[in-house]
C-alpha cells in the first residue's frame, strides 16, 4: 500500500502552489478513503459527505505531513480517526433482537450457517445490513477492529500503525470482541 510515485510528486507540486496537482491528489487518495469509510461507517450515514470532510481535513493538514510514512498511510489514519469520531457520536444499541430483523436479513442469517448452499450475489447488501446490525451493539473501536481483522485481513501491526493502539491492547480487545460476537449471534439464533 505504498504511495504511488505520482502521488508524492503531486504533493510536491501542490505544495509549490500547482492547483492541478490537487486534483491528482484527490484521484489518488479517493479510493483509499472510500474503502475505509465504507468499512467503518454505517450505511445510513452519507458516505460522500464524510469522504469530503476527510479530504478537506487532509488538505488543511498537508503542511503537517512529514513524509516519514507513505502519504496513503497518513491519510488512512486520518480517515479512520474521523470515522471513529463519527461512530462514537452515534448511539450504541443496547441489543440486537430477532424481531428487528427484516425478512431478507432473517433469511441471510438462517442460511449463513448452512454448508454447501449457493450464495446469491444480491444477498451482499442484506448481509452487510445484518453485519452492521449485529455490530451496532458494539463500541465504535470494537466494531472497527473486528472488521479490520476479519474482513480486511489486516495484521495486528498494521492495525497498531493505523490506530496508534499497542499490539497487546489490540489482542485483548479482539479476544473480548470475539466473545461478545459469539454471544450476540448465539442469542440471535436462540430467539428465532
Amino acid at each position, binding site marked *: 500500500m505504498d504511495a504511488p510515485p505520482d502521488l508524492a510528486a503531486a504533493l510536491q507540486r501542490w505544495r509549490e502552489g500547482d*492547483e492541478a496537482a*490537487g*486534483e491528482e491528489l*484527490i*484521484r489518488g487518495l*479517493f*479510493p*483509499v*478513503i*472510500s*474503502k*475505509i*469509510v*465504507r*468499512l467503518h461507517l454505517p450505511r445510513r450515514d452519507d458516505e*460522500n459527505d464524510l*469522504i*469530503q470532510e476527510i*479530504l*478537506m481535513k487532509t*488538505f*488543511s493538514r498537508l503542511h503537517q505531513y512529514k513524509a516519514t510514512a507513505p502519504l496513503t498511510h497518513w491519510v488512512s489514519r486520518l480517515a479512520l480517526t474521523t470515522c471513529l469520531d463519527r461512530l462514537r457520536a452515534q448511539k450504541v444499541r443496547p441489543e440486537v433482537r430477532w424481531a428487528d430483523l427484516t425478512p431478507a436479513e432473517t433469511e*441471510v*442469517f438462517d442460511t*449463513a*450457517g448452512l454448508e454447501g448452499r449457493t*450464495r446469491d*450475489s444480491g*444477498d*451482499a*447488501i442484506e*448481509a*452487510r445490513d*445484518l*453485519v452492521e446490525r*449485529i455490530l451496532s451493539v458494539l463500541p465504535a473501536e470494537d466494531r472497527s477492529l473486528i*472488521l479490520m481483522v*476479519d*474482513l480486511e485481513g489486516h495484521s495486528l501491526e498494521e492495525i497498531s500503525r493505523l490506530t496508534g493502539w499497542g499490539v497487546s491492547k489490540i489482542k485483548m480487545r479482539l479476544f473480548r470482541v470475539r466473545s461478545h*460476537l*459469539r454471544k450476540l*449471534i*448465539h442469542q440471535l*439464533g436462540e430467539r428465532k
Partner: protein
Amino acid sequence: MKEDQTWRELLAQSRPAFAGETEVPYGLATRVLAGAREQRGQRDAFERIGWRAILASLAMVALTAGLTLGVQAMNDREDLEPGIQSLAVLENVQVS
C-alpha cells in the same frame, strides 16, 4: 463453533457490499479544492495579520518604554517634597 462459522459466512457474503469506490464522484474534487483554496487564503491572511499584530505590539512596547523612562527622568529631577520645593523657589536655589 457454530457462531464463528455463521459470522465468517456473513462476512464472506457481505464482502462485495463493503468494497470502496474508485471513481471520484462528480463535483467532489471541485468542492474540496475550492475549500482548500479558501483555507489556504485564510491561513495566509491570518499569518499576515499575525505578523502585523506582532510588529504593532513591539512598537507599542517600545513607545511605552520610552514614555515611562522619560517621565521617570523628569520625576527624578522634581522629586522634592512640596515644602522643600517652595523653599528652593523662595531662596532661588538651583536643584538639578
